[in-house]
């Protein structure tokens, strides 16, 4: 395992807010091409963890390396440059509600307007929308879409720059079981198509089983257990058991 190159390496990560210590020495390794699920209770610090990875939050202590670069050592320009290679799907979708679907998808491209022509921009937008099966919504506003459609649009926006790594924050939370399954299948298909590595934050067992190769259990701020789905499921550890009930 240590021979393969790591897409993301987290060593001894600490993060707290005042007296509330959230992460207390968390470790994680995401290999290239791998899909890793992080499972944890609500409020256990899953969102904090991936916000640290993308540099939206600064760790108190510890080292985060993404594609060989240490996040904390990068200046803003280098960080922005690295972020192009990382897609982030927000739990709340974070679609820009004052913009149309097209403008939402164009937004990540605006940094590159000098290299990309109008036609290429349009092609990229349409390709991304076709990937998620929503080409017909291009001129709608986010408010006009259903929850599942919004999640797909957010996914299309995340994928428009063809990132190498995708961070999913609870991609199926708040969706009905059928839509959840559709989103999980779509994540699978897109991961194969673009050959991405991913971290999938979730507590939806069906989604994890469908999309992840391996999983990590986040308990009390540390990586309490890790392994394949079936291995962890077979565990008799009283801490792990409740997660599979």
């Amino acid at each position, binding site marked *: 395992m240590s021979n393969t190159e790591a897409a993301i390496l987290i060593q001894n990560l600490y993060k707290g807010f005042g007296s509330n210590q959230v992460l207390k020495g968390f470790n994680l390794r995401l290999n290239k091409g791998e899909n890793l699920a992080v499972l944890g209770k609500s409020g256990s610090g899953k969102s904090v963890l991936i916000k640290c990875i993308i540099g939206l939050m600064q760790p108190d202590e510890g080292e985060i390396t993404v594609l060989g670069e240490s996040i904390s050592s990068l200046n*803003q320009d280098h960080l922005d440059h690295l*972020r192009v290679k990382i897609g*982030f799907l927000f739990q709340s979708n*974070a679609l*820009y509600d004052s913009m149309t679907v097209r403008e939402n998808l164009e937004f990540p491209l605006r940094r590159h307007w000098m290299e990309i022509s109008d036609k290429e921009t349009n092609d990229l937008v349409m390709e991304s929308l076709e990937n998620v099966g929503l080409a017909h919504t291009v001129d709608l506003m986010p408010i006009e879409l259903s929850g599942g459609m919004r999640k797909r649009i957010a996914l299309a926006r995340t994928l428009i720059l063809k990132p190498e790594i995708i961070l999913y924050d609870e991609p199926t939370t708040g969706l009905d079981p059928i839509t959840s399954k559709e989103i999980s299948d779509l994540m699978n298909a897109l991961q194969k198509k673009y050959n991405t590595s991913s971290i999938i934050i979730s507590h939806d067992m069906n989604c994890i089983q469908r999309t992840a190769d391996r999983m990590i259990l986040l308990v009390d701020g540390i990586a309490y257990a890790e392994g394949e789905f079936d291995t962890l499921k077979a565990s008799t550890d009283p801490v792990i058991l409740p997660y599979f009930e």
Partner: protein
Amino acid sequence: MTLPPNTKRFLEEAGAIAQFTGRFFREVFRPRYEWSAFIQQCYMIGYKSLPLVGLTGFIMGLVLTMQLRPSLIDYGVESELPAMVGIAIVREIGPVITALIFAGKIGSSIGAELGSMKVTEQIDAMEVSGTNPFKYLVVTRVLATTFMLPILVLLGDAISLYGAYLGVNIKATTSFSLYYTQVFNNLSFSDVLPAFVKSFFFGFAIGIIGCFKGFHSSKGTEGVGRSANSSVVLGSLMVFIIDLIAVQVTDILGFN
């Protein structure tokens, strides 16, 4: 020494706003410049406030004239009415009323808009897609409020003076050109300039406070409502504080 909690919170907030303002000045001169977003904000902020500013200016001019007339008659100087209202409108009423209306309409909408973008993670989404949200959202809005408010004040003054003209004409008849001559003969450069200059500061303060409150909105719809509300309250208060400082400064500089 321990401070009372209210004082501590006040000082912390003042410090945070000062820091936010400092960040504005660091980012405003650094490329990339968000021109198209700035132009769009000027349109949204300037053009869309025009009807409200015009209407309130008109009413203020009219009412002020009608209120002043009896007192001037008592002193036997009714003929000075145009000069009086002209000075009152241009030096004080115009800028302050326009700024207060502006704080109510624009300050609250900036606070609510950025607040809801904050709590729905749209600001984080901009950040991760490589657009500096401070530049894209804050710098453009603060520049737009700073440059649009003085223009609105000038237009508001003009409409207000027209309202005052109608007010003068209710009980007496003056030709528009005579009224106009009377107003402007009594106005000097030192009446117009300080009022114009302080409008920039009003606009800047309203923009900074709206953006600050939005950017620091707490989670939930209640948090967004609070940002909108406190943008107006603090923005309006700042208008009066700046007005107080401006009158001292003009006094010291000898603009009287």
